[in-house]
């Protein structure tokens, strides 16, 4: 198995400039996180808002540079602060954002949104761009007639499909999914999760899946990393983390997740009767 993504001790600080009356300060958003993801596998990153998981996603997607630490993509060291970001590299890593209502340009037709990455990469003639976009639309469960429509004509689940299609246009090897189903209804969520699983099988994709929903993580992940205040407090295979959580925060997370099985409902109703 080849390693697609490796992070060694990634650190990201944000400096808040001081003013006349206050001193500047530094916020440590990510404090030394290390992990590896193998080809065709899914790493899930779990944590509450403000724990640095989206900051980490931006670093992995080569949007922001890390303050220190090494990021290796397919064994090659990448530091975008030094200007390592080439078109080839950009093609390797793509991202799907959380809110499909905010991540599509309302004035851009779906077809244009899908073909822009190919235009930027160059060397793809117009008719081939169109064909590839049409093929991708079908792949994510939409149809050719959607090519000339605008984002407002689609439901949330369809928009997330479009966002996934756009991310896949350049055949990336690594896809970062930043809470891709948290804005969707339960029934639509199941469809999108199925689509992601199908696409992973077909293209042998590697996923970094960011979520705060443990039931989704348990379903989709191979490895799980739990983040808390910028640190990775737990990292292991799914079964290790779910059957034997080590850190207190992970245990708190498990306790807080609502359980929907008849046994726990019965227990709750019994407690309620006593009280």
């Amino acid at each position: 198995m080849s390693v697609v993504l490796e992070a060694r001790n990634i650190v990201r600080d944000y400096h808040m400039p001081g003013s006349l009356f206050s001193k500047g300060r530094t916020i440590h958003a990510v404090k030394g996180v290390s992990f590896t993801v193998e080809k065709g596998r899914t790493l899930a990153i779990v944590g509450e808002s403000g724990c640095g998981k989206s900051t980490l996603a931006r670093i992995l997607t080569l949007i922001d540079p890390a303050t220190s630490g090494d990021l290796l993509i397919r064994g090659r060291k990448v530091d975008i602060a030094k200007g390592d970001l080439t078109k080839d590299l950009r093609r390797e890593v793509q991202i799907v954002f959380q809110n499909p209502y905010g991540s599509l340009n309302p004035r851009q037709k779906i077809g244009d949104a899908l073909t822009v990455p190919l235009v930027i990469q160059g060397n793809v003639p117009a008719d081939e761009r169109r064909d590839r976009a049409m093929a991708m639309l079908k792949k994510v469960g939409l149809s050719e007639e959607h090519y000339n429509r605008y984002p407002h004509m689609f439901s949330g689940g369809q928009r997330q499909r479009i966002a996934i299609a756009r991310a896949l246009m350049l055949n990336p090897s690594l896809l970062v999914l930043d809470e891709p189903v948290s804005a969707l209804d339960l029934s639509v969520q199941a469809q999108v999760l199925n689509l992601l699983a199908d696409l992973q099988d077909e293209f042998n994709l590697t996923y970094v899946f960011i979520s705060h929903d443990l039931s989704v993580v348990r379903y989709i992940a191979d490895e799980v990393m739990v983040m808390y205040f910028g640190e990775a407090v737990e990292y292991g295979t799914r079964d290790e983390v779910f059957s034997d959580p080590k850190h207190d925060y992970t245990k708190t997370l498990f306790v807080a997740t609502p359980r929907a099985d008849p046994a726990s409902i019965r227990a709750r109703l019994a407690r309620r009767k006593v009280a």
Partner: protein
Amino acid sequence: MALLEIENLVVEFQTTAGMFRAVDGVSLKVDEREVLAIVGESGSGKSVSMLAVMGLLPWTANVTADKMTFNGRDLLRMSDAERRKIVGKDIAMIFQEPIASLNPCYTVGFQIEEVLRFHLGMGRKQRRERAIELLTAVGIPNPAERLNSFPHQMSGGQCQRVMIAMAIACNPKLLIADEPTTALDVTIQKQILDLLMQLQDEHGMGMIMITHNMGVVAETADRVVVQYKGRKMEEADVLTLFENPRSNYTKALLAALPDNATGDRLPTIADYFKDGSDIAGAAVS
């Protein structure tokens, strides 16, 4: 006698393409000290039916019902002035998205005290005392100082607590919680749900919990109404619903939970209606 009783509620909106029926013949009732959950996906009419009870829908909405009573009083034939005396006092609502529901121009103290002044006619000093008491009850540290904070100075979880404090300010008989935890982290969600259940128990309120999260339903409800496309699909007590759901739609919803995944793929709603049968035909009355 039931606290809130609705029979055959229909809500229609005027659109350019004619009337759109958002709620189509929903009947339900809530007793005192009972927690009713309304479950459904977005667009199933769950919020709209409760807004109709509160009288908060815009004038374009056309609300009809065979019966809509609260505590024996007819909500349909009530004047707006009379309704305003009940809404916010005896029926209170916690809205989705706490940060967007609070007024950014006023301190949270002002917004809580406004409810007390309007409904209970309390004096300035009394109001301040009660507001501090309320913030303590919902678990906000340093309540006296926090009253002077603006909504943007508080986190999402704290804003939701302020919303709850406003809703319980007049000890309502019925509390409607519209997706109270959707925008929150699981750990905060747990705290808010625990708080709501504790308050419900202490004050003996009836409660309607609107949600699309089956986990929240399992953790809070006594009885559950499942809605789809404006229609009631099923009504059952919570244990029966999870153990042997009768309507196909409920079965599909439960199967789509990642917790219940068997094998590689999750069953989707579409799988249950493959034979082309009308979803409406799946309703169990």
